[in-house]
């Protein structure tokens, strides 16, 4: 790993680098080509490796290996949970509850059922702190609610949603609950069995594993149709020749996460505190978007509006002048349209605030020195952009 590249990387929520141990595990697997569904010795060794990987992931999630199903990533897992459930209900389309702050792989999928097949959908808006309120959730429930799909932690704000409360309600009423855990898994410990979740999606590349692999926890595997039919892999629920290479990377990432998750989280929390302190010392005028407390938000994420500058311009300057990579709340998309973050909009923020918002997310390779350099650069960039702007 290129230390200099990592020093400037503040976009861990978009994707993470693979860890050295993951890279090593994958390099070692690259030559092991036998088809894990065949029956010769090498194939069986690969099948056993698959099973071992399933155990590693299960241990990270607090469940057993037979409830872990591998997919090509978080998007497939989200699509699968929703489609695998709702395609069984097309003859009697009912009501779905989701939120306005879901990842597009949930939102677009739910919209597809709404537009194409006549399901009714409640898109819950978060409070201004970025979290869905339980009373709003309760109010949205209907007689024929067939599925609830709610994320565990939001990718833009890091705000953690009240999943355990929701799960209590859905399980009491016999409504299936899908949780997009992509941003939480690998960052906070999770015990999926203790919580009454029916389906939980995760994605390796958000916690130092490779892209293109993830999975779905499925509590009752007869509750879901396959999204990918075929040769019967993954207990017949997800077909396709097993991608042992990627899965070996996922497994190693899961093992590392299981061991180090508390330590990573503490480190991230320390980085976050430091960043907030330094920003305040630097006298940059910021407003944080969404809750930033430990209990209510991921430790590695800060979403903030910086008064008087455009987030997009700030991000470009941070990148081109200082080599820092961040994400933004709004981008130009074409002449007729701008794209304002749907998450920040749903939180009720106004256009100007969204246009001046940036998302900073860090991880295990971020050092406190990186944080210091980051804020120094941020301060310079904000000053430079402010100086260009109209005298206020």
């Amino acid at each position, binding site marked *: 790993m290129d230390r200099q590249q990592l020093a400037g990387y503040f976009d861990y929520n978009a994707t993470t680098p693979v860890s050295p141990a993951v890279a090593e595990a994958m390099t070692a697997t690259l030559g092991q080509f036998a088809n894990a569904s065949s029956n010769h010795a090498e194939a069986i060794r690969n099948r056993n490796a698959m099973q071992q990987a399933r155990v590693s992931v299960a241990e990270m999630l607090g469940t057993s290996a037979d409830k872990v199903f591998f997919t090509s990533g978080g998007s497939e897992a989200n699509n699968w949970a929703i489609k695998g459930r709702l395609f069984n209900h097309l003859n009697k389309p009912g009501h779905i509850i989701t939120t306005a702050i879901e990842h597009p792989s949930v939102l677009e999928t739910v919209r597809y059922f709404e537009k194409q097949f006549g399901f009714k959908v409640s898109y819950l808006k978060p409070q201004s702190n970025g979290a869905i309120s339980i009373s709003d959730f309760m109010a949205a429930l209907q007689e024929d609610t067939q599925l609830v799909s709610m994320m565990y932690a939001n990718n833009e704000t890091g705000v953690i949603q009240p999943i355990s409360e929701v799960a209590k309600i859905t399980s009491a009423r016999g409504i299936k609950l899908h949780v997009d855990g992509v941003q939480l898994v690998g960052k906070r410990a999770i015990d999926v069995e203790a919580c009454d979740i029916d389906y939980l999606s995760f994605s390796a590349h958000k916690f130092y594993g490779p892209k293109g692999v993830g999975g779905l926890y499925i509590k009752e595997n007869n509750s879901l149709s396959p999204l990918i039919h075929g040769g019967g892999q993954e207990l017949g629920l997800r077909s396709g020749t097993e991608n042992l290479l990627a899965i070996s990377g996922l497994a190693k990432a899961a093992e590392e996460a299981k061991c180090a998750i508390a330590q990573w989280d503490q480190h991230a929390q320390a980085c976050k505190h430091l960043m907030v302190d330094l920003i305040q010392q630097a006298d940059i005028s910021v407003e944080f978007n969404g809750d930033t407390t430990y209990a209510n938000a991921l430790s590695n994420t800060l979403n903030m509006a910086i008064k008087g500058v455009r987030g997009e311009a700030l991000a470009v300057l941070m990148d081109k002048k200082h080599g820092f990579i961040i994400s933004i709340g709004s981008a*130009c*998309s*074409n002449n007729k349209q701008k794209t304002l973050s749907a998450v920040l909009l749903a939180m009720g923020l106004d256009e100007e605030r969204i246009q001046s918002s940036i998302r900073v997310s860090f991880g295990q390779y971020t050092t406190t020195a990186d944080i210091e350099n980051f804020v120094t650069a941020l301060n310079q960039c904000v000053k430079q952009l402010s100086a260009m702007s*109209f005298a206020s």
Partner: protein
Amino acid sequence: MYNDIIIENFSDPQHVGDLESADIELEVGNSVCGDRIRVQILLDDNKISNALFRAWGCATSVATANIFCDSLLNQSLDSVCQRDVEYKQQMLGELSPSQHHCMDILNELHQLLSEQRVAEDVANG
């Protein structure tokens, strides 16, 4: 995404500021994006001797403002107003779809300048 012309003109713009007494002042805003640009121009014997801008907007629109100001220096108003489409396109370099609105901004700046010149000609003539 951002070509070198845009990056350079955005990262270190040389023409930011205010003129004490400008001969011409142009102001454009993009209602969709919320970009706002003001350009002030000083004339010396019908040649442009200085041009400064202020901008609030995306990186490409800031760069556009600086590119525009830079292109004015030591030019006659006539020559600036005669620039054709092709010329203006190469001023910004290759743009991705999300940056095309900056081509509109550049066109608008030229357009406003032409109008001002006509207004001045009328005033002076």
